[in-house]
């Protein structure tokens, strides 16, 4: 725990933004209290002001159903939940219809891609319409990223190294690597990539709470390019909150990671 926390009071207007969340259900497991009302209650309990959210149905089964459900949830949340539009490369027309919502409504702030779930690499041609649109209209794109995993080989489609070509070709697009690679080896590669490309950002959600990870990333990158995320409704947000709050980094950097950076990157209202 950074003991300076007791000596440096955090202003009450510190905004906390969880930059990687989901609503909906997952076939793999029972998720208790998955409804948006309970989700907001937990946000209130923890002092999380805003969640950026991609609906699980939009990623896993139905773009239309998922996005429409998310819109209903965002209405209930009254601005506390803002949306990622999901781009599925195998349904480009449908996807682009939703991507254009990023320009039309204040509810959607960016695009989410999931190369592992959709089994298609981010530098593949099917993602090209998205990258071009994002470049033209300054839309950030957040992606699931993960390490190679022999037990789950679809993760190979989401390795951080695959984003080098995209970052190079579209330097104006802010590319946020969700999970920052997900595992130790890919964390290192994600950091290396972010050092090479100033339009790459790292977001720390996931099931990896390696001691020293937060400090390592902060030691290698300017803190403005590091974002807090939890992967909530899969993962309870308290684990990652605890990792960052107790990290041996300054209070100022914690404030940036926990909210200021997301506000800047996603141009949140």
């Amino acid at each position, binding site marked *: *725990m950074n*003991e300076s*926390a*007791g000596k440096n*009071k*955090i*202003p*009450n207007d*510190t905004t*906390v933004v969880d930059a990687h969340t989901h609503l909906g259900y*997952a076939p*793999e*497991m*029972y*998720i*208790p*209290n*998955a409804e948006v009302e*309970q989700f907001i209650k*937990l946000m209130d*309990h*923890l*002092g*999380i002001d805003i969640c950026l959210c991609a609906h699980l149905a939009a990623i896993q089964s139905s773009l239309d159903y998922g996005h429409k459900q998310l819109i209903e949830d965002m209405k209930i949340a009254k601005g506390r939940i803002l949306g990622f539009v999901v781009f599925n490369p195998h349904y480009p027309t449908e996807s682009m219809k939703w991507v254009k919502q990023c320009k039309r409504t204040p509810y959607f702030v960016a695009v989410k891609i999931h190369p592992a779930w959709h089994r298609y690499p981010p530098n593949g041609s099917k993602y090209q319409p998205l990258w071009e649109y994002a470049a033209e209209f300054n839309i950030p794109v957040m992606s699931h990223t993960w390490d190679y995993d022999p*037990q*789950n080989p679809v993760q190979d489609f989401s390795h951080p190294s695959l984003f080098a070509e995209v970052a190079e070709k579209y330097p104006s697009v802010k590319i946020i690597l969700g999970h920052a690679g997900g595992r*130790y*080896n890919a964390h290192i590669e994600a950091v290396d990539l972010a050092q090479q490309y100033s339009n790459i950002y790292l977001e720390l959600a996931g*099931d990896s*709470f*390696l*001691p*020293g*990870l*937060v*400090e*390592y990333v902060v030691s290698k990158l300017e803190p403005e390019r590091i974002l807090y995320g939890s992967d*909530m*409704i*899969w*993962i*309870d*947000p*308290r*684990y*990652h*909150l*605890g*990792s*960052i*709050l*107790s*990290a041996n980094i300054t*209070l100022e950097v*914690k404030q940036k990671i*926990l909210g200021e950076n997301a506000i800047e990157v996603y141009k949140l209202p």
Partner: protein
Amino acid sequence: MTFSFLMEKFSDLKREIHFFDANCWIGENPFPSFKHFNNSSELIIEMDKYAIEEALISHFLAWKYNPFIGNNTLADEIRESEKFYGCYVLVPPGTEKIGDIKGYIDEMVKKKARAFRIFPLEHHFSLADWSMGKVLSILEDRRIPLIFPLGQITWAFNQVHWDVIYELSQRYKRLPIIVDGYGPQELTQSRFFLPLLENCENVYLDIHNLILYGIIEEIVNRVGAHRLLFSTGMPFNNPGASLMRVITAQISDEEKKQIAHGNIKRLLKGVRI
């Protein structure tokens, strides 16, 4: 609970609640990591930073090299320490240079063993009575907790044999069985462990990898806080993660204390020395 409250009170709340870590490791970490603790002294430094008062610890040598050598190394490490209890590793009798198994368990309990771990997948043995029956009977008789890493029952991704835990819990109803959630799979296992907890009173879960959204509150509501054990999983996990989970859990203060230290202390005190 506001964010500024969390930041200012995190330090105080750790000390009010008192934490006993039911699962952490020392020794050279065989897995890639930013941190590891070569010995108990290094672990104490980290524990002090997080106000974790005591721990049940294991040694990587016993898992990744040889149980007999690793257990002895751990015993030497913790002999003089008031903060640590040992979680040693066992294999079937006659398959390691440990002599009579009853004598060995006696000896290790004198060396501060208060729990044992097994790795049937990696150490290649059966849990059937013809293999481990004598060991499990002794542990049950002495009420010594058996820690069962989740990764040892997952034969391949998406194939989980929680049936193994159920069968063990039914064969040895007075044996405390603690499922160590190490590994990524626990996140997706709620349809296994919720019914298991409801049906098996002697099964406990540690929390360092019990990371599914809201699941701790769900378990407390369904079966009670007495079945959960605070753990950090160091060096696999940042201790701040589990600490925050308990400190901000939406359960009573009494339930938090049960999870933080009460349950593991009750189990360890139940060991027949």
